């Protein structure tokens, strides 16, 4: 029995050694970004949708105020968004009010808009084939190009929606609305230069508002379309948008910082920078002695790039103009970790924790600290004491969030497109910590029981129904693909399962099923109070492995772990 246990432990150790040959590898998901604190919920369409939604509200409010609130908000909304044709016979209360009160500027605006508005065009031809082309002058058609809706505006009415419309309008508020519409027309008519000129000529007069954001959105879009990417990135940053289609290197970040030092979009840009650095410097090899089942994952470093980023981050933190300095220092920590300087990573993440940062950044710092600490070699004596506060915090966070149902979108390590994926990200952090940090840590120190205990805890924790789905899918996926990127517990570690429930803390390592080591523990305790069980396995490791099989009966009452008090 002793030899069997030694053999199993040996396999365990060998497996880990094979999977983690070079210090800080990632045998689970090589393309998975661990510097990730918020979902890429700013894909252009989603961000655009939110902006449009905000503008719709602002627009209704503006026109509702324009009619002194004498027309219901619903009627205003209907007039703005449901009525396609405007004439003086309209029975819409909003327009009737404008006619009755001779609001010529407003009527002029709406008369023009209702004959040119792309929403109208869209609605009017929605059911038509993209081959449709009206033979009648005055009608328009719609078609897709470059996956963006564009509206052909080559009709006589639209020609009047030009700079002259802005100039001839004396009412400043409506004039600004004309600016948006003319910019919009230019954009969809591919006249990007015209769109840019309009903003640069009249934009200064537009006060801070959703309307201004909309104008800037078209302005930035036009800049991007004529390859003035850096300028587009700066303008987008000013309205809190990160455009994944643009390239954000250090120089671009610096230029953005000079113009928009406290842009909300920096979170996405920095995230993208670090993850791109990760992608470009993480590698996998299947060459012998490695294989597809046991690949060799390793990082390289690009010091010039990380140094350039660090210099910018230092400057930003020193300046104090960015109100999220923790972001920059935590990114420095991430780069240090990827570059193999774990000591610097630990020091920097501690520094970042003391700085001001958004809740998302603070959460990310905590998870990064967990990842970093789990691979430390210099804290043997109090390894768990250091680790457990963050680990417990993460476990409770996951329990609170529940298991995301959107996991299928993330197969293959793609960057999540929705903030909901942060929950899945937390599970990944847990998996990484346990499988790449804690288990190898104990294995390398000959503490097989403790190692198995954590693995068992992890398995136990993943017994939730949804978790099972994720795991089963992952297993199927791995079987299909040959190499798993997801939930590789089973493949990178020997199959260890708890298969029986026994009261107290009895366990029987002599019981094997189908060649698998059966480790028995109190499942309730594992799930709800794993730190207590950790204490139990501490005890087991302390008393050493029993000789010759048989049962080991630890004390019925274990002391409560001190770190929980």
């Amino acid at each position, binding site marked *: 029995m002793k030899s069997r246990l030694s053999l199993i432990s040996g396999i365990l150790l060998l497996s880990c050694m094979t999977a983690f040959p070079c210090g800080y590898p990632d045998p689970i998901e090589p393309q998975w970004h661990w510097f990730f604190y918020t979902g890429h919920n700013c894909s252009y369409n989603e961000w655009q949708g939110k902006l449009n939604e905000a503008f719709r509200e602002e627009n209704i409010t503006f026109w509702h105020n324009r009619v002194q609130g004498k027309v219901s908000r619903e009627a205003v909304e209907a007039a703005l968004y449901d009525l396609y044709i405007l004439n003086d016979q309209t029975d819409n209360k909003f327009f009737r009010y404008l006619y009755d009160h001779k609001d010529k500027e407003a009527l002029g605006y709406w008369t023009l808009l209702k004959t040119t508005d792309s929403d109208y065009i869209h609605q009017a031809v929605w059911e038509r*084939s*993209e*081959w*449709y*082309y*009206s*033979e*009648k*002058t005055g009608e328009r058609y719609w*078609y*897709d*190009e470059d*996956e963006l809706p564009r509206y*052909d*505006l*080559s*009709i*006589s009415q639209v*020609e009047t929606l030009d700079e002259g419309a802005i100039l001839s309008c004396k009412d400043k508020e409506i004039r600004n609305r004309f600016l948006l519409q003319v910019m919009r027309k230019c954009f969809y*008519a*591919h*006249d990007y230069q015209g769109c840019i000129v309009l903003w640069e000529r009249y934009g200064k007069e537009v006060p801070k508002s959703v309307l201004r954001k909309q104008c800037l959105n078209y302005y930035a879009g036009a800049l991007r379309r004529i*390859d*003035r*990417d*850096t300028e587009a990135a700066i303008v987008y940053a000013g309205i809190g948008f990160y455009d994944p289609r643009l*390239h954000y*290197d250090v*120089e671009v970040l610096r230029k953005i910082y000079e113009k928009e030092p406290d842009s909300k979009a920096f979170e996405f840009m920095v995230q993208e920078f670090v993850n791109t650095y990760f992608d470009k410097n993480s590698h996998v090899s299947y060459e012998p002695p490695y294989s597809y089942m046991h690949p060799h994952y390793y990082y390289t470093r690009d010091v010039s790039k990380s140094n350039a980023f660090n210099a910018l981050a230092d400057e930003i933190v020193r300046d104090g103009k960015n109100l999220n300095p923790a972001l920059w220092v935590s990114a420095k920590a991430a780069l240090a970790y990827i570059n193999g300087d774990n000591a610097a990573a630990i020091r920097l993440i501690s520094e970042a924790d003391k700085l001001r940062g958004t809740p998302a950044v603070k959460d990310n710092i905590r998870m990064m600290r967990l990842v970093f600490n789990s691979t430390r070699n210099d804290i043997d004596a109090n390894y768990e004491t250091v680790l457990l506060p963050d680990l417990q915090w993460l476990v409770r966070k996951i329990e609170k969030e529940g298991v995301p149902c959107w996991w299928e979108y993330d197969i293959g390590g793609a960057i999540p497109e929705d903030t909901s994926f942060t929950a899945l990200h937390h599970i990944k952090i847990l998996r990484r910590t346990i499988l790449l940090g804690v288990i190898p840590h104990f294995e390398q120190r000959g503490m097989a029981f403790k190692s198995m205990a954590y693995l068992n805890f992890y398995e136990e924790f993943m017994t939730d129904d949804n978790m099972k789905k994720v795991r089963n899918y992952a297993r199927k996926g791995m079987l299909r693909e040959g190499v798993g990127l997801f939930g590789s517990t089973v493949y990178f570690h020997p199959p260890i399962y708890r298969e029986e429930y026994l009261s107290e803390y009895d366990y029987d390592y002599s019981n094997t099923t189908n060649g698998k080591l059966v480790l028995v523990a109190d499942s309730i305790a594992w799930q709800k109070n794993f730190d207590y069980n950790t204490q139990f396995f501490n005890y087991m490791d302390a008393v050493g492995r029993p000789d010759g099989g048989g049962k080991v009966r630890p004390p019925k009452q274990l002391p409560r772990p001190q770190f929980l008090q």
Partner: protein
Amino acid sequence: MKKCIAFCIVLLVVLAGCQHKNPNNTLFSGENSVYFWRTWYSINDYERQFLSDNHIQTRYIRFFDVEPNHGWRDDDKCVPVATISFDNEESFDNVHVVPVVFITPEAIVEYESFTDHLAHRIYAMCVKNKLEINEVQFDCDWTKSTRDAYFQFLIDVRKALKTYFEKDIAISSTIRLHQLAQTPPEVDYGVLMCYNTGDFKNFNTKNAILDIKDVKPYAKYLKKYQLPLKLALPCYSWDVEFDATKKFVRLNRSPHEWYDTTQLKNLGGGLYEITGDDIPDKAVKYVRHEEVSAETILQVKSLVEKSYGKMPVVLYHLDSVQLSKYNPDEIKAFFD
């Protein structure tokens, strides 16, 4: 003597067989022509003067492209994209307009699904924009595998156009150099495209727009080519951008603002190495600026006309920025 007469008869028959097809005179009036390849039909003062000075009566205007439907709607297998918009101020009085439709090779195999739509769309565009036309041109990079589909499309679309316009509409087709080796399509005439002759993505290509070396191998086919031809010559330039590993990055159709000597080290032959920092895209390390000298254009013109005979010329394309690089005498020589 009888033998001599018989020989002469045989010779005449052979020579007659070698003659190119007689072109339709109304289509081949020898007038100068240009392509218009933008998506917004508007002509500036320079271009207007250019048309006038060079007596250009025929404008080949790209109406739209046809490509497979990649959109979310699956009603149509292929869809029109990049449709041109017309400036309402522009008059087409006394102007011979030829709509041109570019069809991708991927789309042409699905021609049955769109032939009728396409004909109706051309008709609708002409009606709406008050264009009187007698001819439509199609542009497709067909090869042996797509040839049958394209040829059948040309037959079908001629019938469809006749239905909508209620008159015969002539059909012409662009002919790429590599297509010269194959049977000509059944059209009224072709326009031989003497441009885009090289692989612009290849770092070692000298000039992908036009290199006489790329044209020479095809000249032999012209001698026996059984289709009346016009000759399209390039008047455009572009920048081809490569990264540090000399891998293709992008094709830039308009010169960069940073295109100056302080940012670039001239490596000769139009190739530049980027040395400055103030550049829009750090990924770009080399730029190959390509344009075609008047001398090269005339050499190519001479080469193909030597094999085929005189051909009316169509310049590609009407763009003041590009055309202004050539002096009036050079332009005149292109058309002569």
